[in-house]
């Protein structure tokens, strides 16, 4: 019981540390408020090339917003370990009563907060610059987003294990998150991809997150997508947890925790 309280305290401390970072660097918040939208905005404006069809544009916007969720989890959790190495505090955390797992849970929680902020900012800019407003079956949408968060966090844990192992993975992370977005149909329905490629798409939780969110916006059934996201969460989270443990064990044995 005492150990559990320690871990919770450690989790809260790490989470608070991440929040304080925003307070110390307020320009980061402004950068994020603009940056999350400008990163996907070229595709949103490109969508207007095909006519002033709001449904078409909302279809694209939903895919891009969910992709943004993946990217934030990926880089916040997956690559967040690298930031901790750069700051020179990873070994200190690894040697403390908390663990690298607790660090990653804190990063997942802060990524969730970041995602909510990012989505709110994107919806604001969508309304202001493109006159788009999101109307959806909100209960279904929140369910899909909640399940997606868990499944995508699991994926991010797997990437975190990889980053812990190889230390430098920015470029490969870039390729991975872009390929995941392309295979999941961020700006198009997956059915236009060749059959062989669609098989790969079906193995990615983001595909179901995007499809489920689009269905929620259209007021359609989300049962299949929700079930698939639960299945992915059940697989990716324990797998990611195990891989992080394995990487942690290996680095402790070799004594290379703090190395670049």
């Amino acid at each position, binding site marked *: 019981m005492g150990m559990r309280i320690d871990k919770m305290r450690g989790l809260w401390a790490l989470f608070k540390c991440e929040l304080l970072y925003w307070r110390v660097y307020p320009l*980061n918040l402004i950068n994020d408020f603009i940056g999350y939208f400008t990163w996907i905005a*070229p595709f949103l404006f490109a969508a207007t090339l095909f006519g002033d069809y709001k449904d078409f544009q909302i279809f694209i916007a939903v895919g891009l917003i969910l992709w943004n969720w993946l990217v934030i989890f990926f880089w916040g959790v997956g690559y967040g370990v690298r930031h901790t190495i750069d700051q020179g505090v990873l070994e200190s955390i690894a040697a403390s009563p908390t663990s690298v797992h607790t660090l990653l849970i804190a990063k997942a929680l802060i990524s969730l907060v970041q995602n909510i902020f990012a989505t709110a900012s994107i919806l604001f800019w969508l309304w202001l610059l493109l006159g788009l407003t999101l109307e959806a079956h909100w209960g279904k949408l929140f369910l899909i987003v909640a399940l997606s968060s868990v499944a995508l966090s699991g994926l991010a844990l797997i990437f975190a294990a990889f980053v812990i192992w190889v230390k430098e993975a*920015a470029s490969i992370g870039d390729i991975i998150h872009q390929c995941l977005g*392309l295979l999941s149909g961020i700006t198009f329905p997956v059915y236009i991809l060749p059959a062989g490629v669609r098989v790969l798409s079906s193995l990615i939780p983001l595909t179901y997150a995007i499809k489920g969110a689009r269905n929620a916006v259209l007021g359609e059934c989300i049962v299949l997508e929700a079930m698939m996201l639960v299945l992915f969460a059940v697989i990716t989270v324990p797998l990611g947890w195990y891989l992080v443990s394995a990487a942690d064990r290996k680095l402790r044995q070799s004594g290379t925790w703090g190395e670049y």
Partner: protein
Amino acid sequence: MRATLALLRYSLVNSLRYRIDVVGSTFSPILWVLPAVLMAMWAERIGLIGDFAEVTGTYNYIAFFLIGGVYWNFVEAVWGIAFSLREQMFTGTLENLWASSIRRLGIIIAWSLASLLAATIFSIIAIAVVGVTVGLDVGGDPRWGIAISVFVLSLIASYGFAFLLFGLTLRFKDAENIVNIIANVAPLLGGIIFPVTLLPLPLRFFSYALPFTWGLDALRGVLLGAETILPLTMQVILIAVLAAFFIGFGWIAFIALERRARREGLSIF
């Protein structure tokens, strides 16, 4: 000159040292435009491609998007060297570099040439991959002479940006956010995958102030026969004027900001 070439060689060796970064950069131009290309393929299937042709003046959406991606790859390769300066700050080698015999302009040229060489290779690979997989035909009668002139003028303007961002990074230690905001907003304002005429009017003013907006629009005009914002001759003259302005203003700003930064100390970070 020798010192500049030595720094150029170092930059190239450093880039190639991290092979995974090379792989990432190779596919970056393609991966960036692919979501737009696939969106257009879907739009074509559901009968919306006519609207695209009406706005852009061409049905050739693959070439339209790819030109934007490749062009931006080069433009960003030059002014993106502000991040190299930031890296020198992180690794604590900025003062050593500044105290060496390499001239400031030599540092900028060495870093930018390394980036441009990499951008050239990656862009050729991107064009080759697209050409082999889906076919790439600019069609019509592309005027390569004008295209090359526009491209060179765009690079000159990009150097102006590089000077300015260099100066800002030296002077303001937290300039990283400023550079990040510019890096995030520039592709939107530059119209990499859409004509800037689609932007709301207030944003369009900022777009029109950028030489890259006119450069990319002119390139699409001469290579694809797409409609340009202004008559092509006027547009090329405008790019030349903006390039001259940005390179002059950028250099003056860099000298002033660097002088101020050296007075306060380069090691403060």
